[in-house]
């Protein structure tokens, strides 16, 4: 019945206008630049990486680049990267959540100021911030100068994994605070009051009501800290010297020093799998489509 009607309608239109293709609407014209960008700068490079990853220098198909990850040095680097980015993400979460809660309960005026202070470092160059930490942490750096002034033993933090965790946390903390604060501030205070009214003490209200409601923000924050931490090579170069080698450094070396693009691509692809995997796991927890953004 419906099909009959549609056919009748279609034949009517054809007989009126001749067989014409529907005109492209304005929106479709507007999307062309983005389509070009996506193809040129995302899809094509991805295909190139795939190509290099699965071929050797002679151009033959091989899995040796992918399997490079299994070599002891690379595996160690990957494990260390996973470990450090996991620890950094955890520290960021443990620091950011209480901070977001404090921000939510203070008055409005000082609120904006504190938020500004948190975001301020992001306005400065990433490299500069990290080099600043190098200055602070090195053997004759600012920290050790202060310690020796008080006749305390000097700390050897630079060029250790701890320095890298410090660098990661410092650089990525705002990315954890803001999404959590965003979601937290939108929670209706009466929802919390209702939980208290029904008998929940502060802790129960937090676990059962507040935390689940902030989960989209937490997921967002975790993603924005974990992924850059996992792939960084700048932080490990500046704060780790050549002593701490992360997977990011390995890939960098393959591309810049060894000039083995195949190996570098292969390792990158493996890393991408890890990231996709962790994002898939995280997205399971973000049931509501309310994934909050940084801005």
């Amino acid at each position, binding site marked *: 019945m419906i099909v009959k009607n549609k056919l009748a309608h279609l034949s009517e239109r054809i007989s009126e206008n001749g067989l014409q293709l529907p005109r492209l609407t304005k929106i479709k014209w507007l999307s062309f630049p983005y389509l070009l960008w996506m193809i040129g700068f995302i899809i094509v490079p991805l295909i190139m990486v795939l190509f290099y990853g699965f071929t050797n220098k002679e151009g033959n198909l091989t899995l040796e680049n992918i399997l490079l990850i299994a070599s002891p040095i690379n595996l160690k680097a990957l494990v260390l990267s996973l470990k450090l980015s996991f620890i950094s993400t955890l520290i960021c979460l443990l620091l950011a959540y209480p901070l977001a809660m404090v921000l939510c309960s203070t008055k409005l005026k000082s609120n904006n100021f504190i938020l500004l202070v948190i975001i301020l470092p992001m306005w400065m160059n990433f490299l500069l911030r990290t080099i600043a930490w190098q200055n602070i942490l090195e053997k004759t750096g600012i920290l050790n100068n202060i310690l020796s002034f008080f006749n305390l033993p000097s700390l050897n933090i630079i060029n250790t994994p701890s320095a890298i965790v410090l660098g990661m946390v410092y650089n990525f903390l705002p990315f954890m605070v803001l999404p959590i604060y965003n979601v937290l501030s939108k929670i209706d205070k009466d*929802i919390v*009051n*209702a*939980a*208290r009214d*029904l*008998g*929940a*003490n502060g802790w129960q209200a937090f676990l059962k009501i507040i935390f689940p409601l902030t989960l989209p923000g937490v997921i967002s924050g975790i993603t924005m800290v974990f992924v850059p931490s996992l792939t960084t090579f700048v932080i490990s170069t500046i704060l780790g010297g050549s002593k701490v080698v992360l997977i990011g450094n390995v890939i960098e070396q393959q591309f810049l020093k060894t000039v083995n693009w195949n190996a570098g691509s292969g390792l990158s692809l493996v890393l991408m799998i890890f990231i996709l995997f962790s994002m898939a796991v995280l997205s399971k927890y973000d049931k*509501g489509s309310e994934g909050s953004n940084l801005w």
Partner: protein
Amino acid sequence: MTTNKLINLVNISKSYGETLVLDELNLYIRENEFLTLLGPSGCGKTTTLRIIGGFETPNTGQVIFEGKDITKIPPNERQLNTVFQKYALFNQMTISENIAFGLKIRKKSKIYIQDKIKYALKLVNLDGFEDRMPDSLSGGQQQRIAIARAIVNEPKVLLLDEPLGALDLKLRQDMQYELIRLKNELGITFVYVTHDQEEALTMSDTIVVMNQGYIQQIGTPEDIYNEPENAFVADFIGDSNIIASTMVEDKVVNILGTNFPCVDTGFGKNKPVDVVIRPEDIDLVKPEEGTISGRVTSLIFKGVHYEMDVMANGHEWLVHSTDLFPVGSEVGIHVDPFDIQIMNKPESEDEQAAEINE
């Protein structure tokens, strides 16, 4: 027949920063009564409710519950439950999880909880809604779930903060009857906050009229309506004609130059007073039969009655009548002495709050 004072508010004061919201408020609430805090926005009624519920702490004063001082006790330890204005349902939980929330906190058994959920849903006429999510429900349904969630914990007192505000008129009227039915079935004390005088008059045993942090009058709906104690109450509840007059002597008041017989005594001689006459209490008669006479200046059909403005003795009188008097007609005004309510003029700061806000 004296029923217990279940809740006693003693000298409660509350300020938010510089603003004084409540000033030494004293109020008691009896067991099993339906008490309504009625007043315009900002009068302090919601603050009072929140202080009873424990969501705000008063700057001074005490909240006494069954003889015990609960002022410092947090909301989760008070034997009251609240129905919030915007329902405050937990949107990520199902209806039964919402209702079961309080019971689970108190570690009731699974069977007990299941029974209670069924009972609560039946009570609010929403059987079968156990597995629905709150945002799939209409406003009225959400409101009923909020009520179910509160009463399932068997509180001694149910606090309701303008729960019917977001509903349309018909639904609001239905819910009013529902609430009365619930109160009678459950036998618990209801403390209700609203700015809608019709709600207050329909449902309450006792109405507490508030303005600017002070209690203006406490009484039954009939007392409040028929015998308002000051200009504010008279103006806030129902329509009224409030005219500055002079109490000539007992049982005689001079309104706009003419003496009217009335029934109030004890105001003294030649005392300035405010007079309240309800528009439905004014009889329009032939000009020669009325105490004063005037001309109809406006006529509006309101369904229930006609609303007319009558200009008489220099004052525009508001009249409600089922009889129609066309604009321009000469009429006489007659008021039964019993229907003339005399009030004192405001004298102190307390009473200034009793003045009508224009």
